[in-house]
């Protein structure tokens, strides 16, 4: 799996909620896209990740 552009060898079937929590990230102010599609927070517990998936975890940074 590719998480934020870096290879990640997490267990197949890991949920997005587990991925986010495992990185010590807060739920608020964070969003996740899997394979270019936003995964709503309400589905983080049920959407699972598999080899070959690309995940982006984003937040706010200072910007014009």
């Amino acid at each position, binding site marked *: 799996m590719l998480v934020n552009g870096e290879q990640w060898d997490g267990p197949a079937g890991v949920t997005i909620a587990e991925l986010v929590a495992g990185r010590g*990230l807060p739920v608020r*102010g964070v*969003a996740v896209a899997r394979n*270019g599609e*936003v995964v709503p927070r309400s589905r983080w517990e049920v959407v699972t990740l598999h080899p070959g998936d690309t995940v982006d*975890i*984003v937040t*706010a940074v200072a910007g014009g």
Partner: protein
Amino acid sequence: MSATAAPEDSRPVPEPAGDDDPFVIAGEELASRLILGTGGMRSLDELRGALVASGTAMATVAVRRVGPGGPGGLLALLDELGIRVLPNTAGCGTAAEALLTARLAREAFGTSWVKVEVIADDDTLLPDAIELVDAAADLVDDGFTVLAYTNDDPVLATRLEQAGCAAVMPLGAPIGTGLGIRNPHNIELIASRLTVPVILDAGIGTASDACLAMELGCAGVLAASAVTRAQHPSLMARALADGVAAGRAAARAGRIPRRHLAEASSPAAGRVTLSGSPAGTAGSGR
């Protein structure tokens, strides 16, 4: 001051935004016509000072991958100060990228407002007009309240309004240049032709630029680098706020027309003349 100054001091001060001159985007009133970009600040503390000094009610943030240090304190700071978050799609080069970024922002920050930017290249950071109109239409279709960063082109601005944008944000000059308003005529045209708020975005270098934008009829000003990269950001934030307020008041006051020749403000009648001087040939007073 002496007593003679009293009458001037007691003149009514022009109303700031609010009360009888509300600044409204998509039906929501903002307490300030100055929107601040947060990019380029050296520290969160410095940003806090500038945000407070500016009196802004809305500030932009960018959407990026979470770094190793986590999300940082930006959202918490804006939350604490009661400042609305306006996510942007900075860095996007296509309508599809802008749509994904906006959807991520909506999910992360719980707002459907977005400042859409679709940039053509990294040297000019100028908007790609074709992708921009596509992105704006897609975002409106997807339920976003869209504020569109655009070129200073009146035709393109009209297209964006027709696409359903809640505000149109023409640039004064390329992002980060501080070159001011390079085409005041176009900005004035845009402001006069659109019914949605027109917010001057990009190019502001100093307070007089912000003031001019408002005098030209803009409803608001967005500034980022002008504040965050100033030697004293808080002081510049305050200066821009004053410039916006002064320009707005001037626009509402109705300036005098420009004339080629002088027009006396003192009456011609009753002038004291020396005997023999050709009265009436030397003008009509001052």
